[in-house]
């Protein structure tokens, strides 16, 4: 087969190669249902982006809840009517200035 000089190491290597050829790799385990796995990957790659969108819904739901909770707990109270603002007393002067137009 090969046009190479054969010394002792060549003979040894050829012996290994000849023996290795006699031991074909065992593929039986991988061969089983192989086509099904290939087709599954093909279908997976074919899915449009929006087919994945629904899988993100729970993540966005949790994020929304967490952000809402954080927003409610950290935002300052802004009383809606002037009476409440007066009652709070903290912004009395500013409010009176505002009401009297000064």
């Amino acid at each position: 087969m090969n046009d190479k000089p054969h010394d002792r190491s060549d003979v040894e290597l050829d012996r290994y190669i000849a023996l290795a050829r006699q031991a074909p790799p065992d593929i039986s385990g991988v061969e089983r249902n192989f086509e099904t796995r290939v087709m599954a990957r093909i279908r997976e790659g074919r899915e449009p982006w929006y087919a994945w969108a629904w899988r993100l819904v729970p993540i966005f739901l949790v994020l929304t809840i967490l952000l809402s909770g954080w927003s409610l707990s950290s935002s300052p109270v802004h009383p809606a009517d002037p009476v409440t603002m007066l009652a709070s007393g903290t912004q009395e002067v500013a409010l009176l200035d505002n009401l009297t137009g000064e």
Partner: protein
Amino acid sequence: MYAPGVPVAVPDEDAVLVRSAIGGDDEAFKELVRRHKGTVLRSAARFARNPEELDDLGQETFLRVYRDLRSFRGDAPFRHWLSRITVHVCYDALRKRRREEKDVSLEVLAATVADPSTGNGPSAWLARMILDQAMSRLKPEDRLVITLYELEDRSVREVAELTGWSETRVKVRAFRARQALKRLIGGDDER
């Protein structure tokens, strides 16, 4: 050369299946995979380190086939085209792979072989193990060429067609790979 015992599909039937698959018939493509998975996996098994990697190589091959199906011209048998893709996928994997760890010392294996108490010589399984270990230390292109040329017993022309290299390059690579393998198996590790 193709592995003995592997059913070789009639090219015309393959061509019909390819046309159907291009038209969107998944069952046709599945049939192509079913017909040729043995050939692909047997070739890829020479490069894979474990069943998981073999599965990956096989799947990657057929995914590439599916992706490039329209570029199959049909002027040569489908299995030739498939073999070229298999070789390229395996070569890409070899190039990506870092130099492998020594799972088993070559010296220990070689000593087992040389030990007269183990019998007259290495078993086929042991010889393959030693060769696998030695080949894992070769450069990717050397490993590719020695696998195709020596282990699969393909001609220089066939190797050149499969790899897309010139015949001269194949011969040079095969020679260098042999020299490296002889050094490795002889215990003279080049590292």
